[in-house]
């Protein structure tokens, strides 16, 4: 009941906040962009696997968006977002072929290693990637309209809010689909899953592709709002932040990732002023507290509310 409408609530709230307080627009869009990537990571956590390298997919998608935007300056922002998602999909389909064989520590560290390779390579090939300075993206038109900055950001905010509702609905369906259910069974017991005649690898492969696609979409959002893509977008600290958001929000329901992302963004706004230079320490400490005190994340409270509501109506 409550969890069903939380994505709408988040979308409406961010839009209202962003339009009322223009200085909040950019942090809000960035927060939601974090949410998409964190949802991708959360999907894999449901399968019992943590990836410390999914920022790699957002980074590649970001670069792909910039390349397309440069080759074809009239390309619409919506098209560029699609480019990001498709890049993630292709990346996931290729890398997943290899990753679907690994579980647990190996899975986490191989993703980390791959993203570090990408990070190093992006910094090295200066002529192609602009090195650590990154590459700039000219502001693209939205729905065929060339917009100035304020309007452009408002539109992006609306687009990301709509995307939150759509993606939450789609992901809720995916979680309930045979593949989605098999994915969480992967965590419970892979051997038993195979005894049922389901290929654990193919289930995990599909899950990996979906998660990479979400990260790709998030990479597209980052490129559009920041207008700049640097290798930093694929650094392991970024991947760690996605994992953090996924755990903070909880993985029981897709909207958890966005709750986590919003909490994270406001924590960051606060920490930036109060605790400069100790950002990773803040994340690490909160993560440790979460593991011991609230391992199911923020969304668990929402689901508890749901259950109480159900009991009262029955």
């Amino acid at each position: 009941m409550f969890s069903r409408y939380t994505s709408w609530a988040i979308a409406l709230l961010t839009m209202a906040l962003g339009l009322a307080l223009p200085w909040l627009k950019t942090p809000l869009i960035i927060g939601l962009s974090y949410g998409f990537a964190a949802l991708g990571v959360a999907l894999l956590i449901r399968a019992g696997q943590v990836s410390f390298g999914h920022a790699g997919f957002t980074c590649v998608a970001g670069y792909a968006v910039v390349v397309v935007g440069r080759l074809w300056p009239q390309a619409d922002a919506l098209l560029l977002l699609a480019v990001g998602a498709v890049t993630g999909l292709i990346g996931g389909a290729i890398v997943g072929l290899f990753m679907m064989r690994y579980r647990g520590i190996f899975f986490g560290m191989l993703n980390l290693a791959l993203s570090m390779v990408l990070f190093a390579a992006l910094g090295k090939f200066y002529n192609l990637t602009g090195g650590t300075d990154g590459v700039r993206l000219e502001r693209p038109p939205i729905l065929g309209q060339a917009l100035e900055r304020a309007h452009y950001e408002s539109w992006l905010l609306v687009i990301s809010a709509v995307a939150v509702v759509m993606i939450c609905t789609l992901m809720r369906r995916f979680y309930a689909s045979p593949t989605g259910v098999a994915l969480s069974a992967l965590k419970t017991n892979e051997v038993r899953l195979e005894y049922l005649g389901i290929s654990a690898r193919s289930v995990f492969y599909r899950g990996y592709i979906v998660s990479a696609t979400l990260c790709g979409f998030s990479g597209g959002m980052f490129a559009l709002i920041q207008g700049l893509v640097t290798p930093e977008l694929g650094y392991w600290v970024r991947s760690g932040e996605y994992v953090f958001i996924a755990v903070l929000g909880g993985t029981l329901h897709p909207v958890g990732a966005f709750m986590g992302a919003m909490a994270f963004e406001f924590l960051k706004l606060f920490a930036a002023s109060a605790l400069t230079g100790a950002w990773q320490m803040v994340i690490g400490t909160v993560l440790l507290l979460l593991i011991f005190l609230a391992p199911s994340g923020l969304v668990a409270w929402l689901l508890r509310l749901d259950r109480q509501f159900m009991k009262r109506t029955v």
Partner: protein
Amino acid sequence: MNASMWVLALLDGTTQAALLFLVALGLSLIFGVMRILNVAHGSFYAFGGYAAATVSAWLANGESVPMSVLALLMGALLMGVVLGLILEIGLVRRILTIDPVMQLLATFAVFMIMEDLQRMIWGASPVSVTHAVDAMGTLNVVGVTYTAYQVILLPLAAISVFIALRWSLSHTRFGRQVMAVTHHREVASAMGINAKQVGLLTFCVGAVMGTLGGALASPTTSLVPGIGGDMMVLSFAVVAVAGLGQITGTAVAAVLIGMGKAFAVYLLPELDVLVPYLMMLLVLLWRPQGLFAVDEARRV
């Protein structure tokens, strides 16, 4: 590439392999007993390096060899035992039974915290204390001038740790207990082994190996933020190539990756950062559990 460059690459490779071996061995040992991959192990390396540099700056100068080496060892031992005790008692023994995803996240959280702690304590500008290297001078190896510290001391340290560990695991009471707990924690406990105590001691020994790697590396490089993360991934590459928990395998893998990295610097300078990872990916494609791993039964 001429003859002297081959020698240079070989020497670089030996140095790298020795350091990698020490750090990776600690990681592997801890995993064997606790069944937890300690992501903060890279930070042990960094903290060991900084601690050794600090102690060296106090005690040693560039003249006395025993004093400067002793300073390094003291720094490593102190830091390793302190970190090991705090982390094992404060965290690791409390997460032995939780969801593996959360275990991995917990040590990752420690890694993030230590990364910032390190910046707060020692700052972000490079730290370099080279007393031990200065004191030992240089050697001429078939026409190539190289520091004696790297040619003699580093391989010697790695080999003696390797022999000492192998011997003590099979010949001492504590070593046999470690082997038993590694094999099967519950059965070992049922036989009367205090698995908790074994865990604490092993964690400290593993941590000291991590800090020792950092301490021995400190006179030859400058310490900057970020070395912990790099070393973590490199030592994981070694452990993954070897198979988790394999001592001799770790030695072979460290030599493979150390040499691979050193030769890449001379042969494929564009790719030197990538070579260790490419080697790891290739090995894992061929043998997903590592080169020397023993097959384990799947528990239903």
